[in-house]
């Protein structure tokens, strides 16, 4: 697991601090595959959210910008998939890329003017974007069916064949997530990733080094939108239903929580955050009416004891070499 404090750009998978969480994660996954049932559903949503947050991390972690409107791109991915596969009868694998392309185009069109704004102006503009897209999903009745939503959306599959059960779906989601993480990790340590980190550090310093700040910010925004749209599209095909509430502001809040709890700016932070935050409420289910209280307390404890996110904790455990910040 690479954290911002890691001195080497290469992950060292054999350190116990990295190995132990991986083994626990694998154990939970193995248990879910054997036991099946509700845990599979929870992990499936966690994987979808992880993809969404990997994208968010691109824009907020690597590039140091703020967006409250990523739910808009998830909604576009999700609704495009839903409408094309139900009303138009398109196959899933054809509808999904269209939704992603639409989100990328919108991100280009919206990002071009708004990314010139800095700090809270950009945050406000993106917040508005999320609200507007959700409002369109509510009002554009003839296409989105408003609050009634679109149901009977076909599941993931191709050529008339669908993934047969929830175990196969989870495996597909995990494979998609692995691909998304791999791309994110490769890009972070590429020329593009270093340019984004420079922009996060200081836009002026980056500019003075010859980095095209406006172009790279736009690129990061589009990449984040592509991830969000992919997650949105996966969501509707897994659940089989979509309505405007699905892509509401709570999606942004949840995404932020996962990003900060997992570790913003790290490659694996989104993965850790998405799975921990998805599983936390379930672990506290036996607390009954105190469930929310326990969840809240756990969140506060996480932010106090791991302010840089759980992915950064590995540096406090034995087996670490080199000097940190």
């Amino acid at each position, binding site marked *: 697991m690479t954290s911002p404090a890691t001195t080497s750009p290469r992950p060292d998978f054999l350190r116990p601090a990295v190995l132990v969480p991986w083994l626990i994660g694998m154990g939970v996954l193995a248990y879910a595959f054997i036991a099946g049932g509700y845990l599979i559903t929870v992990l499936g949503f966690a994987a979808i959210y992880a993809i969404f947050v990997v994208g968010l991390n691109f824009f907020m972690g690597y590039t140091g910008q703020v967006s409250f409107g990523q739910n808009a791109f998830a909604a576009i991915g999700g609704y495009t998939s839903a409408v094309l596969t139900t009303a138009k009868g398109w196959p899933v694998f054809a509808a999904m890329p269209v939704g992603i392309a639409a989100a990328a185009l919108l991100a280009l069109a919206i990002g071009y003017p708004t990314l010139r704004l800095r700090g809270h102006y950009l945050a406000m503009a993106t917040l508005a974007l999320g609200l507007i897209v959700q409002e369109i999903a509510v009002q554009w009745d003839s296409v989105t069916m408003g609050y009634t939503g679109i149901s009977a959306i076909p599941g993931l599959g191709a050529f008339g064949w669908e993934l047969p059960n929830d175990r196969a779906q989870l495996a597909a989601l995990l494979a998609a997530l692995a691909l998304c993480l791999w791309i994110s990790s490769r890009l972070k340590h590429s020329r593009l990733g270093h340019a984004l980190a420079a922009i996060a550090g200081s836009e002026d*310093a980056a500019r*003075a080094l010859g980095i095209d700040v406006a172009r790279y910010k736009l690129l990061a925004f589009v990449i984040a939108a592509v991830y969000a749209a992919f997650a949105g599209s996966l969501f509707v095909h897994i659940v089989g239903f979509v309505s405007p509430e699905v892509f509401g502001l709570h999606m942004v809040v949840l995404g932020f929580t996962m990003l900060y709890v997992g570790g913003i700016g790290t490659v694996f932070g989104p993965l850790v955050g998405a799975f921990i935050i998805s599983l936390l409420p379930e672990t506290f289910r036996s607390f009954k009416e105190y469930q929310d209280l326990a969840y809240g307390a756990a969140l506060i404890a996480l932010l106090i004891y791991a302010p840089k996110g759980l992915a950064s904790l590995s540096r406090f455990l034995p087996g670490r070499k080199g000097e940190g910040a």
Partner: protein
Amino acid sequence: MQNATPLLAVEGLSARYGNVEALHATSLTVARGELVAVLGPNGAGKSTLLRAIMGLTPGNGSVRFNGELLPRGDARAVAAQGVILVPEGRGIFGPMTVRENLDLGAYLLGRQRGEIAARLERVFTLFPRLQHRQAQLAGSLSGGEQQMLAIGRALMAGPKMLLLDEPSLGLAPRLAAEILETLGGLNRDGLGILLVEQRAPLALKLAKRAYLLSVGRVVAEVTPDQIASPHDLARYYFAAA
């Protein structure tokens, strides 16, 4: 220098932050291979001057480099011409390693690995300490090492002219002298340097010429022998205010 065209010619350059003009119609020149200092108290507009030359701060006036007009409002294009800024507070990227910072300095070179390696070699010869700390996070370096990194990163860009914003800031006197010494060496090798400094005595050891800046304008152009004591400087600053 047979060629009379100055390396850098700033004319009537002004800069504003919002509605406040922080630099008023300033003109100065740096000849080829010359090291020129800009001295002035806090808030005189020294950093603003460098930012305005880079095009990081909006304003009027013109900047010519080798006789060619530099574009305004496009620091990237200015950097591409070979005018490289070592910003105030060093502007290094703390969460990245020393090596990654240096690589970013050579950003405009793209993937010319051979040339990047050659420049890296030169930077490490100049600052051997950076070589030992290559894999360390830039944010964990000492102040002096961070300044070395900032200068090293600028050199990775293959500058034809360096703009330095208070390289001695926050450094112990001996370290500050050492860094300025290195800059003097670069200048003797032919690199044009515009050096903004608050520690006038240090800068005047290197510079043949200095501009005194006060409240956003150049109040005098002096040679080191005209500034024998701090009182001389104060006289210039306060005469203008």
